[in-house]
């Protein structure tokens, strides 16, 4: 497909090449992947490597009385067996520095790593595990966040005697079980509530799900002869990783190198440092050999971070003429035994509570509480699925309570370009109202909703319903680190081939293709002219990482900046030769052209060679670092934290079989404000994939954690959506042409997953008259709800106000 166009350009058959923007560009690495040639981390073997396996606790909460590794050490082919005793100076990792890689003295959850083996083969390593003898003393378990708040609840991180003052929680423990708290407010809540004509309150419960990347987790750690560390890692944040590893290992960060083999899926699962990675480094150090570890799928289910489960109580109000007045929210987060990014989901949730639709007043309080459950990490949408589930159900409830059409109600409260939200987010480009209107029209929402509601008592066993939900998410990065930027190095060789060296990682979402597309658009070259290098921290410039749907926006602007510098350098050198000003020249179809006439002056490769082999040689190599013009939030979490914001509205149609509880997702009509469509093929793929991920979250997926143990650590009983179950998808784009975005584009990676569950909840209510406020909508739970046998979600208890700072 691309080749035909390239050939036409090269031959001059096409005078003015069509812009690449908005085209269907095939993914650069797709041919290799479709041939099975791509070598993922699992497929890489390093000479001399050993294989690691980790012994994990089977107890939920216990004191480690004794670990006897002598039998394991004696096995042939075993090079090292380590426990916490072998790494006495190990430092705790994780967001709250509460997580020792090898657990010392106490296990707090069933995935806890207590010993590790490096052996000649994976089979030998696992055999050695079974020769390790552990004595535990079981301790009382707390697996409910509310119970963990009680004064007499077991402490998950009890204070550790002899810890030095100021030591992190992983070394010192803490006095209570509160891992984190957030308190947010804007506007005058009391006044807003007093001014409300209708107030509704509900409690919601959002469950455990997990990423299920098709490629399981793994790492290869090796030290070279000079003691530098090389990690083959699937991290999404290589530069943060590099620095953090150096910190944990007490090394100079300049001596840590991360290379990223192609990844078998990310979705946010690889944004933190996990014990198994550090443990493999310990083993590499202990054995002097490279150490490789790959999870089994069962281990992937047992030991990976989950999506943050949330208990949520929301009170929403509006005036009788349909204007929102306030939202008051409390959430309780089960933090699990150790703190990962899940605890920070309130950052994102407060954006939705405070700013999805126009909300004059909002307050939000939340606690993340330690328990002995698995811990939550970051997962596509990062709390927004949970928050939207509540907010959008209330939009329906409020509208129905007022007797106003829910689409009209939403339109009345949807922001327009130029508005500033209660949280201080500046909505420069904003297609919210268009998204609502278009999704509403294309789906026939209003008429269908009325019709289905009217037919609710006709006795049909199989019923249909429609539901709508919108979402707001950052679309131009999120300034949560000191920098939200990305660097690019670009070189053009003697043959017009571009090497684009970017800090932005490719995690399967197609970033490398979009970056190539943006650069080729600037340089007038075909996509085949670009090689993207993005996977080695020794080579690529800094990027904060792949999260917050930022890569197209920020890495894109960075790449464009470098490309424009290259173009400017070329036309500046060419101008004297063609006796004109640089501004009169441009690059198109692989040529230097006179902009006014389109006349081709010389082909670009020839010109580049003439620069190179001149008396004063010049190679065209440029760099650019792009920092988005967003700001850090203040202590009250206010501020324009992203350079752009994105919206989407999805309308879903479901069929509910009331005799079985099975909910089929028939159709999803989505309208997305993406700023501008860059790679049409890529963006469709992202949205379709996100919709199906949202479908799984709403209908089929449930990680069953009971008394601290995962009951279904396999695909047989953890149900991902399969091909025959997907809905019809009608996806349309609203192109609001963001002023700061690359070619006007905004981020979209997380958006499509965010509103499905909320829309499905609203659709089930439309079909059956029953509103279900807890996920998932599996057949049994829906059936129970229809028969009044689903236990109601208890309200979140009042959260004690924060103590003095």
């Amino acid at each position, binding site marked *: 497909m691309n080749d035909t166009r390239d050939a036409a350009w090269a031959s001059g058959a096409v005078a003015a090449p069509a812009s690449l923007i908005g085209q269907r560009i095939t993914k650069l690495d797709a041919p290799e992947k479709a041939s099975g040639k791509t070598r993922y981390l699992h497929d890489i073997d390093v000479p001399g490597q050993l294989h690691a396996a980790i012994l994990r606790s089977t107890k939920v909460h216990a004191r480690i009385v004794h670990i006897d590794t002598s039998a394991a050490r004696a096995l042939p082919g075993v090079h090292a067996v380590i426990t916490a005793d072998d790494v006495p100076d190990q430092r705790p990792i994780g967001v709250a520095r509460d997580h020792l890689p090898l657990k010392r003295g106490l296990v707090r959850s069933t995935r806890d790593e207590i010993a590790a083996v490096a052996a000649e083969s994976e089979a030998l390593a696992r055999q050695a595990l079974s020769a390790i003898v552990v004595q535990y003393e079981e301790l009382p378990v707390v697996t409910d966040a509310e119970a963990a708040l009680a*004064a007499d609840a077991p402490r998950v991180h009890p204070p550790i005697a002899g810890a030095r003052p100021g030591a992190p929680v992983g070394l010192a423990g803490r006095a209570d079980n509160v891992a984190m708290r957030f308190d947010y407010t804007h506007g005058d809540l009391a006044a807003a509530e007093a001014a409300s004509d209708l107030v509704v309150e509900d409690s919601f419960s959002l469950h455990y799900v997990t990423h299920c990347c098709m490629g399981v987790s793994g790492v290869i750690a090796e030290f070279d002869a000079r003691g530098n560390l090389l990690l083959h890692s699937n991290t999404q944040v290589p530069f943060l990783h590099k620095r953090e590893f150096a910190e944990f290992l007490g090394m100079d960060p300049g001596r840590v190198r991360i290379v990223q083999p192609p990844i078998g899926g990310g979705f946010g699962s690889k944004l933190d440092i996990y014990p198994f990675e550090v443990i493999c480094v310990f083993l590499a150090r202990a054995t002097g050999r490279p150490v490789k570890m790959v999870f089994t799928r069962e281990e992937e289910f047992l030991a990976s971070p989950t999506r943050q489960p949330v208990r949520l109580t929301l009170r929403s109000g509006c005036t009788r003429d349909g204007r929102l007045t306030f939202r008051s929210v409390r959430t309780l987060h089960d933090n699990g035994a150790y703190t990962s990014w899940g605890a920070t989901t309130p950052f994102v949730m407060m954006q939705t509570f405070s700013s999805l639709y126009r909300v004059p007043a909002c307050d939000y309080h939340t606690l993340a509480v330690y328990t002995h459950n698995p811990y939550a990490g970051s997962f596509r949408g990062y709390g927004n699925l949970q928050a939207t589930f509540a907010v959008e159900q209330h939009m329906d409830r409020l509208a129905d309570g007022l007797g106003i059409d829910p689409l009209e109600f939403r339109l009345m409260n949807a922001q327009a370009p130029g508005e500033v939200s209660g949280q201080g987010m500046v909505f420069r480009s904003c297609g919210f109202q268009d998204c609502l209107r278009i999704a509403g029209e294309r789906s026939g929402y209003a008429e269908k909703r009325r019709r289905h509601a009217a037919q609710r008592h006709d006795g049909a066993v199989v019923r249909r319903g429609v539901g709508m939900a919108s979402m707001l998410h950052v679309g131009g990065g999120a300034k949560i680190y000191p920098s939200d930027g990305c660097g690019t190095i670009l070189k053009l060789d003697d043959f017009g081939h571009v090497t684009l060296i970017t800090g932005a990682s490719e995690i399967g979402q197609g970033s490398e293709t979009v970056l190539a597309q943006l650069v080729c658009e600037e340089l007038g070259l075909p996509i085949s002219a670009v090689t993207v290098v993005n996977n080695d921290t020794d080579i690529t410039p800094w990027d904060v990482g792949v999260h917050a749907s930022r890569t197209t926006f920020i890495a894109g602007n960075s790449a464009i900046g470098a490309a424009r510098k290259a173009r400017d350098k070329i036309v500046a050198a060419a101008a004297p030769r063609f006796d004109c000003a640089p501004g009169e020249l441009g690059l198109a179809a692989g040529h230097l052209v006179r902009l006014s006439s389109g006349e081709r002056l010389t082909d670009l490769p020839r010109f580049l060679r003439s620069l190179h082999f001149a008396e004063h040689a010049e190679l065209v190599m440029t760099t650019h670092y792009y920092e988005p013009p967003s700001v850090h939030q203040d202590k009250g979490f206010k501020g324009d934290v992203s350079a752009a914001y994105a919206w989407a509205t999805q309308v879903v149609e479901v069929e509910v079989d009331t*005799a079985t509880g099975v909910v089929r997702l028939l159709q999803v009509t989505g309208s997305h404000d993406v700023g501008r469509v860059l790679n049409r093929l890529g963006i469709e793929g992202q949205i379709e994939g996100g919709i199906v991920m949202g479908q799984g979250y709403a209908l089929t997926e449930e990680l069953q954690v009971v008394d601290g143990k995962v009951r279904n650590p396999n695909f047989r009983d953890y149900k991902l959506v399969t091909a025959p179950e997907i809905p019809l998808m009608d996806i349309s784009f609203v192109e609001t042409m963001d002023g700061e975005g690359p070619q006007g584009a905004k981020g979209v990676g997380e958006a499509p997953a965010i509103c499905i569950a909320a829309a499905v909840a609203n659709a089930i209510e439309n079909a059956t008259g029953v509103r279900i406020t807890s996920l998932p909508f599996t057949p049994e739970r829906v059936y129970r709800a229809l028969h009044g046998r689903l236990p109601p979600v208890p309200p979140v208890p009042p959260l004690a106000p924060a103590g003095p700072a």
Partner: protein
Amino acid sequence: MSAPGRPQALMPEPLGGEGNPLSAPGRPQAPMPEPLAGEGTPVRAAAHPGFARYLAPVRLEEALEAMARPGGATVLAGGTDLMLQLGIGRVRPAATLLNIRHVEGLEAIGDEGGELVVGTLVPVSTLLADPRVALHAPLLVLAARRFASEQIRNAATVGGNVCNASPAGDLATPLLALGAAVTLARLDGGKVRTRRLPVDGFFTGPGRTQRAADELLLALHVPKAPAGAVQRFYKGGTREGLDISSISIALAARRGDGGALHEVRLALGAVAPTPMRSPGAERLLEGVVPSAERCAAAARAAADDARPIDDVRASAWYRRELLRNMTERMLADVCA
């Protein structure tokens, strides 16, 4: 630009440890020694499960001899269940890994008068493809269509599935409804002796059958559908395939002139330790043209006969509700 590391100070520090006195931790129990190896990582056993020898005989006698030898034999047919069960330790390897896929005569489907004889090695996918099965035992086609995925169907054998005796019984439930039988063979005094057992009663518990350790299942005998045959299958779950049943229902009957149902057999899966029939429902349906009320009563009787449990897939209550509702729907379709 300073090297970035932890998120900005705007993120609240985890709450400090000063203040509350530590309340007493839970009562420590006596240490629980676990001298046995194996506790720890709940991952699959290494790939050396302890078979002493491997045999892939061509002659049935040789296979049966291996099964009768001390130490016994673990039978390998399709392997789809065996690989899993070895991995999780549910099956302990016998002395011999006995691959029966080369034994002659076990992979055919024969038409023998009133019944189809389905060799033990016939893959489930063949049930879907073979026109004789479609013609004479459509219930098996309905069940096979909902059996796992194509990759599994191509390898899993009918004999393996029956011997595996899962309570969900994706093939067992329809075979029970069809009144099928099995032929088992063993070596007795050097000679191959066979015996034929009805499927009804063959399953004695989860994963257990009447097959002795030295017996090999040779074939299934499936009575051909008579004129006026009525056969239906239902499997609970959200997917078409790859779903362990929350429940399954298989109905076989013959509709006589006048529309009455005869020889009604209603089999239920995943609602008891083994696939089972519902005598209560069958009694209500036998010999009558069921009215809507009769269908509802039969459905209630099926739910009453069932003995489901709560497990990770579904609760007992829901299984009963689903069973009642889907039996009623199935019967309503039959009587429509």
